[in-house]
């Protein structure tokens, strides 16, 4: 049983240099065909359960025009939502208008995720994006006026040539906007992106670490609930927690990933195939052992860690029976309370290394 839905909208006004998600330049004809196919996909695969979260991401969902948005929400109407369903919509700053916000509001969207990434000129140039603080401030006001009280801002850091000072300026500006949630991303240089082809190089590990530490310190008033996510108490992203809690979710749309009935699947990234109804590209049937590994890999991203009792209920054996955690507890890589096992916050930044020792 899945209690969450992700929907991918792969259209953008411009292409960011680092993005490796399936995306195309906006084109009305394609959007029309895409929504038609998306409707079919949901109809074919959705099994009528009530869902607790919906997340519309991209690409840039906010690029759709009024008619297209109406069509999209019409499709989504077929999905049953619980009374307090968290419904997130990703927006680009420049797309935010009164008209857009009203449509979103009317259709039940109650959380916005705005991809600002940075306000620093050289960072924006590197990413191939635009952002301006005054404009952002005005748009935030508009959102507030129209009743959006759960807003996430995306912040990207560790961009080549970025200094700690640049990051400090960004963080200060982000905080001035008073968001409920900040997602931070240390830049990854992925294959098939412009910056990969341009042979851009990572900033030094030391600086990346220093930036991470700075962010943690600066946002210490917020709840650091997941390795790169910070929120005011009560505003943690329910949708993302579905991922970290190793729960099942639908992924609809081009290149979307999902996890249904013990199968992790990934949709095709080929638009032609998608439009022809050939949706799924890969499937991985997840065994109990694999599930437990995922549980570790995902669960330990949460600062609260893994609930021992819940683990036992899910898998029928103790967390410490399933994995040999004693040496890690001894080394204080992991810490333990009565209820939880979690990564020592001082060692969060070498999480992969710790995961490798467990799985």
């Amino acid at each position, binding site marked *: 049983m899945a209690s969450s839905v*992700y929907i*991918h909208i792969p259209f953008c006004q411009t292409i960011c240099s680092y993005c490796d*998600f399936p995306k195309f330049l906006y084109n009305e004809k394609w959007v029309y065909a895409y929504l038609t196919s998306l409707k079919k996909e949901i109809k074919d695969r959705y099994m009528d359960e009530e869902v607790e979260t919906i997340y519309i*991401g991209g690409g840039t969902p906010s690029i759709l025009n009024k008619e297209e948005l109406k069509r999209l929400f019409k499709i989504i109407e077929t999905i049953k939502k619980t009374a307090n369903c968290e419904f997130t919509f990703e927006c680009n700053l420049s797309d935010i208008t009164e008209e857009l916000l009203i449509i979103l509001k009317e259709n039940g969207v109650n959380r916005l995720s705005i991809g600002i990434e940075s306000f620093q000129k050289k960072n924006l140039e590197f990413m191939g994006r635009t952002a301006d603080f005054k404009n952002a401030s005005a748009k935030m006001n508009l959102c507030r006026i129209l009743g959006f009280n759960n807003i996430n801002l995306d912040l990207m850091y560790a961009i080549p040539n970025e200094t700690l000072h640049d990051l400090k300026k960004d963080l200060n500006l982000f905080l001035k906007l008073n968001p409920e949630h900040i997602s*931070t*991303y*240390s830049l*990854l240089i992925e294959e098939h992106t412009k910056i990969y082809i341009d042979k851009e190089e990572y900033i030094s*590990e*030391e600086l*990346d*670490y220093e930036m*991470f530490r700075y962010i943690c310190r600066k946002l210490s008033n917020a709840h650091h609930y997941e*390795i*790169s996510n910070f929120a005011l108490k009560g505003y943690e992203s329910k949708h993302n927690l*579905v*991922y970290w809690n190793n729960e099942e*979710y639908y*992924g609809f749309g081009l*290149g*979307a*990933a*999902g*996890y249904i009935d013990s199968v*992790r699947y*990934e949709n095709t990234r080929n638009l032609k195939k998608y439009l022809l109804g050939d949706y799924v590209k*890969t499937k*991985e049937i997840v065994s109990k052992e694999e599930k437990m*590994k*995922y549980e570790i*890999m*995902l669960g330990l*991203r949460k600062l609260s860690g893994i609930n021992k009792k819940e683990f036992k209920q899910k898998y029928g054996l103790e967390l410490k029976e399933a994995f040999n955690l004693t040496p890690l507890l001894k080394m204080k*890589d992991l810490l333990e309370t009565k209820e939880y096992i979690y990564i020592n916050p001082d*060692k*969060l*930044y*070498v*999480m*992969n*290394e*710790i*995961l*490798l020792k467990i*799985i």
Partner: protein
Amino acid sequence: MKKENIRNFSIIAHIDHGKSTLADRLLELTNAVEKREMKDQLLDNMDLERERGITIKLNAVKLNYHLDNEDYVINLIDTPGHVDFSYEVSRSLAACEGAILIVDAAQGIEAQTLANLYLALANDLKIIPVINKIDLPNANIEKVKKELVEVLGFKEEEIILCSAKTGVGVKEILDAVVKKVPAPQINLDKPPRALIFDSYYDPYRGVVLLVKVVDGKISLKDTMCFMATNCEYEIIELGMRTPKEEKCHELKSGEVGFISAAIKDISGVRVGDTLTVKKNRAEEPLAGYKEMKPMVFSGIFPSIPNKYDELKDALNKLKLNDAALEFEPETSEALGFGFRIGFLGLLHMDVIISRIEREFAISIIATSPSVVYNVYLTDGSMVKVDSPSKMPERVKIEHIEEPYIFTNIIAPSSYVGPIMELCQNKRGIYKSVEYLDPTRINVHYEIPLSEIVYDFYDKLKSTTKGYASFDYEVIGYKTSDLVKMDILLNGDIVDALSIIVHKDFAYPKGRAIVSKLRELIPRQMFQIPIQASIGSKVIARENISAMSKNVLAKCYGGDVSRKRKLLEKQKEGKKRMKMVGSVEVPQEAFLAVLKDE
């Protein structure tokens, strides 16, 4: 065929002078192999031999030849050319009466030409000098002829010119073998005696022996016995190689062939031993051949601990046709259970390691090679030490001696400067420079063996653009001011990284190793000091800074499988690491530390 019409000979040459190609040509000329069955370098059976272009294992083939209305049987015993394998050469030569000495028409005499020739002369063999590759555009036949006459003392008229590639002169060589190489002494009436000059393990037939019958005859169903170990077996199969196996009923005095007897117990078989027959047992064993002592010792450990037994089995099988291989169990705190193995030289070590990894599919870690030191203690006694970990405490040592070699380095005279500089840097003692002709020199130094086991040969090749050839003989022990240097990772001594160095070279060496390790060992979760120390005194130190960040912070769109794959990939990378205490050390680190400045 008359019994005096047998010839046993081998081909000796410096590496790359065309020995295996000439052997192919001889096989073709005597129709031993159909043209369509020919593949290059037929006698080189091992993949490793063909790949590296070197012959490691000797091989024996029977050729039929017709000359002046007489039928002859010619046994060709192939030999390796590299200095490390000269014991194989001496095994071959013990089974021969003659040898063809090949010299490359473009290269002239090289270091191993000399080494192998001396071995052949020591065995009283008739030598037939041949200049090969005369078809090369840069062949300098007159100059090479002059070297053969002036340096080695051949007569000009006995030198045969040949191109194994085109076939020119190949028949003359066979004719010369028939005419000049004496027939083996044939003693059919004496009790049977055969020299075992090689053996190998065949999974279906057990141990197969290659023998030269010296006296009497050995027949199918005979009960044979090994004179050194007294093991007895009934002979199940006899034959000769042409080079395909041709079975027969008996092998007679003067003949070379193979014997199998379903021998499963490897330990009773020794190459060099004499084989006789139970019912007509010989009294005295044959003289055997010059045995070589291992000069270089290294610890070999399976990278996965539970492969210890497999490794032991592999070594036993390799030992079967590699008498020079010696090993005993060794334990290392860092690497677990393994073996201390004695090798003839670095190439030998390389070959054995490759064979273990390829033929037996066992991944191994080798520690830095060491020579055998004579350590004199204050109580007047002496111990032989072949591993830094066995070095007694410093206070108990009176003095230490180490083995020295005498070099033959043959190169164009323009490289004399760089060669001498290299030898000096390796603690060499200058002896002399000999001119082979106005443009070529033979440089003689005395150098500690420990200095050449690491990278001397590579360095020599690079400083002389590949023109130098190198050979050496061990001349004995000399006193040196040596100390044991330990390497500490995170404060703990890693026994597998300890080495013995000359005191004057300890500081630079310590610094070099420490900085090399810093490059090789990846960052870990905590800062790691790497130190080099002599006794309790730290002489070099560097830090590997702690890993600062390795989080895949992004995970958009619930693409969880992909992150999982990335993690699995990282995990794969970890398999090449060995945990030493709490530090992950890549396997290469154990050897690579010594291959630098």
